[in-house]
């Protein structure tokens, strides 16, 4: 189709917004680790961004969106972006390069979310190797299955902006890696006070801000559907924030980190649903996400699992809830799809399948990759390096008094 300057303007802006989510994750996570690892945590997000940016241009985009091979993976026809041009392709109204770039920032933020499980103990070299393998072998295939013309979309599963591809995959991969990399020394024994809560709040603000690009941009046009996605995104975030705040208040005091964690939970849950549900449904989806992810976090801590910054409980489980919620709340007043509440059981079943597949695939492949990398170059720094902190031991830098 012909290029629409309005749609293109929105996608370019949305891409910039989503790009900011990657350092946003860095600051969100960086504020929650101990002081000696703040720089490391932020640096991991930048490194993830740079690494995936190059991988995506060279072959990642092609694996995900290149010519389909048996529904499983994209071919290398678009490697090096040869043939990805300035004109729209197919029914799109935006430049093919803009679409590619928009997808790139999704791939980068997914790896950034995954850094949760590496917090305060990963060797940079191991992260570089693991990250490259993971984005190629986990993210790219999943993206192809759901968005690139692969088999999962063929089953009728809906995922507006990445509940399965981004959040479930990052969250359950983090869970798998946690089993391999092991706890931080002192986890569960010493208090590990967050170094800089205002920094975490800044990260959360950038995430909330960028998420408008993530979800409303996924309409790939500046139209009414984008507006709907924008509205339900904000609504679910707000509901999640208030719900987590209330739940944690009930248990003590409403921490600011709880408020923003609830917002992120709401944002995660609404992600697959943003183009299919109404604002009122978004309140329910967000509120349930806030309470559910809060409970999952408590469960994780109780189990003594050091998936340090809760990629699993928030992104993984929030993503599961969101994917199912599409199957429940999808409404024909928003888009042409319906869910359980409109009597459409098939949609709900399709969502379950998509969840099971992405949970299973992400978990298994990530577990294997983590074992392999750990057995070869080793995932963790030495005990001394961990004690001194990654800022000094990995980067030769530190956060001052």
């Amino acid at each position, binding site marked *: 189709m012909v290029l629409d300057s309005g749609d293109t303007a929105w996608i370019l802006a949305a891409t910039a917004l989503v790009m900011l989510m990657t350092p946003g994750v860095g600051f969100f996570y960086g504020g929650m680790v101990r002081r*000696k690892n703040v720089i490391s945590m932020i640096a991991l997000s930048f490194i993830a961004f740079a690494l995936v940016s190059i991988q995506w241009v060279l072959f990642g985009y092609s694996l995900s969106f290149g010519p389909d091979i048996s529904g499983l993976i994209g071919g290398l026809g678009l490697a090096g972006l040869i043939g990805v041009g300035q004109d729209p392709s197919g029914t799109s109204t935006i430049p093919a390069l803009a679409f590619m770039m928009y997808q790139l920032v999704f791939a980068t933020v997914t790896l950034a979310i995954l850094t949760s499980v590496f917090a305060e103990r990963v060797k940079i070299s191991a992260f570089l190797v693991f990250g490259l393998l993971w984005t190629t072998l986990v993210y790219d295939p999943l993206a192809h299955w759901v968005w690139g013309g692969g088999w999962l979309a063929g089953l009728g599963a809906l995922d507006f902006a990445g509940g399965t591809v981004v959040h479930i995959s990052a969250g359950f991969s983090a869970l798998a890696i946690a089993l391999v990399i092991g706890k931080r020394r002192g986890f569960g024994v*010493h208090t590990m006070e967050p170094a800089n809560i205002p920094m975490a709040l800044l990260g959360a603000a950038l995430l909330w801000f960028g998420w408008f690009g993530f979800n409303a941009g996924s309409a790939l046009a500046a139209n009414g559907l984008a507006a709907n996605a924008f509205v339900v995104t904000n609504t679910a975030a707000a509901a999640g924030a208030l719900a987590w705040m209330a739940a944690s208040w009930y248990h003590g005091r409403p921490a600011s980190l709880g408020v923003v964690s609830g917002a992120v939970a709401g944002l995660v849950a609404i992600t697959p649903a943003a183009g299919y549900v109404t604002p009122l449904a978004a309140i329910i989806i967000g509120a349930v996400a806030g309470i559910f992810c809060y409970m999952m976090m408590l469960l994780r801590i109780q189990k003594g699992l050091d998936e340090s910054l809760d990629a699993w409980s928030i992104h993984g489980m929030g993503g599961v809830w969101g994917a199912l919620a599409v199957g429940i709340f999808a409404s024909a007043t928003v888009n042409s799809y319906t869910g359980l509440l409109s009597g459409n059981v098939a949609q709900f079943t399709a969502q379950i399948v998509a969840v099971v597949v992405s949970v299973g695939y992400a978990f298994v492949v990530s577990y294997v990759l983590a074992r392999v990398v750990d057995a070869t170059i080793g995932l963790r720094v030495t005990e001394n390096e961990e004690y*001194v902190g990654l800022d000094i031991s990995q980067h030769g830098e530190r956060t001052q008094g």
Partner: protein
Amino acid sequence: MKMIQAIIRPEKLDDVKHALEEKGYIALTVIDVKGRGEQKGITLQYRGKKVEVDLLPKVKIEVVMKDDEVESAIATIRASARTGKIGDGKIFVLPVEMMARVRTDEVWT
């Protein structure tokens, strides 16, 4: 009176605080410091390059107490701050000639 100055690992602060509290030593002052131990800190082997990181974060606890309490206080701190690994810290005992309370005109010598 004496002032005990104990330099301990930051992550042991809570344990030491509680141990002292149980023995009745409530009042204390805590200072963030950086320290270099007799082991000259930690040597990192990094890509073939040796790097010395010689100032590590520590916490200093100061407690002023009567002379006859010193022994038990030291034992308490030792027991609660020890990990057995290098860097557990040191305890110093300094003489204090007088202590005064700001709020009232009380004085202890």
